[in-house]
């Protein structure tokens, strides 16, 4: 039995609106060990909100409720904002979806990575510089010294995302939440980035929550998968058995993908059943 890093029980994220309270995440429970856990679903299914809620990044008027979100026995829900800041980045870090919005546009990339590193460690500037270079090379960025001097707008989306990954991994966190880390990247680069993340997760014994809309990628890359629909987990399965998934929603998603080996005239379009969003969440706890 592997040790549990993170235990989430009955997580709800709510947003009050003019038309009543909107539940973005509805009673999600799962545990994370030293493994790669995938969360898949369409936009609006609450997968990103789940990731953000764990880091308590949801600001009022958004409401987060949970029986517990415990990181190695400490309930994050009860921590003060100051203690929470020590958790973010250092113990749990998050790679966001879009590097364009998550990098500071008026700061060089080098300065940003060095800042991220020095915030959490007492390294000297030159140490931090070398470590940053090393990290950029680890995410296979060519010409790292030039990139250190460059500003985010000079980078392509793919490079920006790799820089984000470098920045998030540099404090050596225990858990990495990756929110669509590779959806802005090319297939060939995607593999590289995934291999890097895979290596780091294995070497450092990190837990990874991999949020993605790409079923095939998740099936390939993760150990376990939660499938979310309308804020609920509709199915939990082992990643290598994803293609045998039973829930009609998962099946529909799988069938709507074009495939190189099986040409079809028309793609299947997903028919949504209102019942899917009514049924209670399936628990992903072990």
């Amino acid at each position, binding site marked *: 039995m592997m040790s549990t890093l993170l235990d989430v029980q009955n997580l709800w994220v709510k947003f009050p609106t003019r038309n009543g309270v909107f539940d973005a995440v509805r009673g999600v429970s799962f545990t994370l060990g030293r493994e790669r856990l995938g969360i898949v679903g*369409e*936009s609006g299914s609450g997968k990103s909100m789940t990731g953000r809620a764990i880091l308590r990044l949801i600001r009022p008027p958004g409401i987060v409720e949970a029986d517990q979100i415990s990181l190695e026995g400490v309930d994050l829900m009860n921590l003060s904002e100051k203690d929470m800041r020590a958790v973010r980045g250092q113990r749990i870090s998050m790679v966001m979806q879009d590097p364009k919005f998550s990098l500071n546009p008026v700061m060089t990339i080098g300065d940003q990575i060095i800042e991220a590193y020095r915030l959490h460690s007492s390294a000297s500037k030159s140490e931090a510089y070398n470590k940053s270079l090393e990290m950029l090379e680890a995410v296979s960025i060519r010409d790292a010294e030039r990139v250190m001097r460059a500003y985010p707008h000079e980078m*392509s*989306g*793919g490079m920006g995302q790799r820089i984000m990954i470098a920045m998030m991994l540099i404090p050596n966190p225990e858990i990495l939440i990756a929110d669509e880390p590779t959806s802005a*990247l*090319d*297939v*060939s*680069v*995607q*593999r590289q980035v995934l291999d890097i993340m895979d290596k780091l997760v294995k070497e450092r014994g990190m837990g990874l929550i991999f949020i993605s*809309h*790409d*079923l095939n990628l998740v099936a390939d890359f993760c150990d376990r998968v939660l499938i979310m629909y309308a804020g609920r987990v509709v199915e939990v399965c082992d990643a290598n058995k994803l293609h045998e998934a039973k829930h009609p929603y998962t099946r*529909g*998603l799988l069938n*709507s*993908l*074009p*495939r*190189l*080996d099986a*040409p*079809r*005239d*028309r*793609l*299947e*379009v*997903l028919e949504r059943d209102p019942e899917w969003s009514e049924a209670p969440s399936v628990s992903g706890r072990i």
Partner: protein
Amino acid sequence: MSILDVSDLNVWFGKHRDRVDAVKGATFSVAKGESFGLVGESGSGKSTILRAITGLAPDWSGSIVVEGQQLTKKRPKAFFKTVQMVFQDPYASLHPRHSVDQVLGETLHLHGFKEIDSRVVKLLDDVGLGQKFRFRYPHQLSGGQRQRVAIARALAPEPDLLLLDEPTSALDVSVQAEILNLLADLRRDRGLTYVMVSHDLSVVGHMCDRLAVMKDGEIVEILDVAALRAMKATHPYSKHLLEASV
């Protein structure tokens, strides 16, 4: 008969020391009614080719021939009745403060159409949106609905050649299926020609008849979809790309 002939196309940005050659010596032609794909990683110049064709990339050399007409720096008005483009990000390509009606109406007006009212209704029906979306603003639409509006806008001048720049990469897979089906239907019904840029080989495999593989601004290989499905790429880079996407 080819509708689009591109030969020895070079596109660059910046000058002197900062010059970046985005496309180098690209040559391909697209037959009328065909669907042609451009694949490659980001920065390989695939979108730049589309932008050069529509006139959005000012510095280019070589020859672009559309329906027998050699293109010059300044595009004649008739050009935009032949060629239209659909952009990647439906969140960025629609004016946030223009309603769907304004977006389509203005396009029709600029192209000198009469009976704008009935044409807007028809366009919305054609892309499967219907009347009730006519007076909505982009923020009231989902990603898939926005992309349908963008497609309707491109169809407004009744073009023959549609340039599709990653039309579904910002969409969910289930919505992607709907948009790809719509594009396939439109092509069949209107006899359109597509040039489609995508990084997703399976999407290109589904939509296109032939495709060009690009790397670092150059077309390294042109192959047809049968060869793609059979994994019979010859160039090492295309092979690598194929292996990475299966």
